[in-house]
């Protein structure tokens, strides 16, 4: 496949926002930001855990943890948090399948939980995630990391770490592609 030009629209009506290389660099930058903001490598550092929101938040959390390990040699535990049962739109579509929830060893009590998701849009998923976290324990603080912030918030929620801000029309769809699911990395607008 010929390399796609950034911003070019292909015949399928798809516009590339981030290439595979961009995704890798963005994840690395976010890892640096998490290290800096949480000071997780300082002697009196808070215990940080990364909780990925399935599906694509889960591998993103693992990738961030790998980068954090590489840059700070601190092994940050990761987990996944399925928020489906906490959504406010279940009655607006067909039955949604559930995904796995796995808390990191030692749970989330008194730890700094960084929620990780691929796209921040209305904020409703994060609202559901905050409710879900509350049933699993009491973190000392919760932060949010997203690869793409596409705007159009419907709730007073903002991210602490943003890979890329993308102005979008409400009707457009932002797709984060990850090798674990899509056989390639990238972010596209459809």
């Amino acid at each position, binding site marked *: 496949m010929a390399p796609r030009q950034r911003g070019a629209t292909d015949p399928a009506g798809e516009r590339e926002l981030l290439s595979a290389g961009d995704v890798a660099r963005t994840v690395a930058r976010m890892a640096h930001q998490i290290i800096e903001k949480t000071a997780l490598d300082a002697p009196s550092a808070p215990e940080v855990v990364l909780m990925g929101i399935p599906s694509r938040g889960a591998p993103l959390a693992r990738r961030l943890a790998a980068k954090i390990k590489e840059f700070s040699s601190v092994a940050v535990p990761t987990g996944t948090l*399925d928020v489906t*049962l*906490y959504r406010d739109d*279940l*009655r*607006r*579509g*067909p*039955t*949604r*399948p*559930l*995904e*796995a*929830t*796995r*808390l990191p060893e030692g*749970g989330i009590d008194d730890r700094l939980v960084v929620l990780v998701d691929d796209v921040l849009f209305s904020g409703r998923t994060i609202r559901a995630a905050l*409710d879900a976290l*509350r*049933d*699993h*324990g009491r973190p000392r603080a919760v932060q949010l990391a997203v690869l793409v912030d596409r705007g159009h918030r419907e709730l007073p929620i903002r991210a602490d770490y943003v890979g890329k801000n993308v102005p979008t029309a409400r009707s457009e769809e932002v797709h984060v592609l990850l090798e674990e699911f899509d056989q390639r990395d990238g972010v596209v607008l459809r």
Partner: protein
Amino acid sequence: MRHLLSTEGIDPADATAILDTAANLKQSLEGREVRKLPTLRGRTVITMFYENSTRTRVSFEIAGKWMSADVVNVSSSGSSVSKGESLRDTALTLAAAGADCVIVRHPASGAAHRLADWLKHTGTSVVNAGDGMHEHPTQALLDAATLRERLGDLRDRRIAIVGDVLHSRVARSNVHLLTALGAHVTLVAPPTLLPSGVERWPVTVSHDLDADLPSQDAVMLLRVQAERMHGGFFPSAREYSIAYGLNERRLALLPDHAVVLHPGPMLRGMEIASSVADSPRAAITDQVRNGVHVRMAVLYHLLAHEEETA
């Protein structure tokens, strides 16, 4: 999905979806501080039990409550049923009172199907919690969930269902569900406790338990249902136990990985020896535990989606 009335003809994809949901629910609820999910807030679930039951009714009630539904229990004694109200009128009353889901157990085979038909024009879902000698679909689902936990995928697994098949809705529901999931089912029972027409079921029939045990991945024992037996189905309890009871000697004939199930209530010393029921090979308490998660999953699949216009 609007109702869960039987496992006969169930789409394997639907069954697998419910089992996957149950497994995820179980895992998500494990070790958490608050065992309550907000998913069915504001929905009303009514259990209507016209037959005695401990585990099924309690299991549905806990399932509904853990999903934050409002659960109301109606039993035949202490309700207008004892004044002679028909099943139809009781059901329409409960639907009019705002039931989103009615869970019904009834001694008449086919009761749940009739109920679903009467409630066609309401938005109310019906779950069959056991109708006479017909079906008990959530029991089959929790059995399948327990088997999947212990054995993995059920495709090509061999499962023997032993005992009073004739009177057993559990056996019927399991035959349909387990074969839909790709398992091979063998029914082992005296000829008097097999239903007529069993030769048309997708199963192997046997009368020799000892010969079948070494090839099975699981054995499901059925309770001998004395309350449904009027007449001599076998000479004596002792003879039944000798021919079809699972004792220590028979347990040793099973492969090491094989699982022993019993839907309960158990008659220890009759269809299952006490030591077998308490052995680590028996998954009987797992079945009860999984029952809650499976019923949560069923409520989720019936109630947590947009209104179907049926």
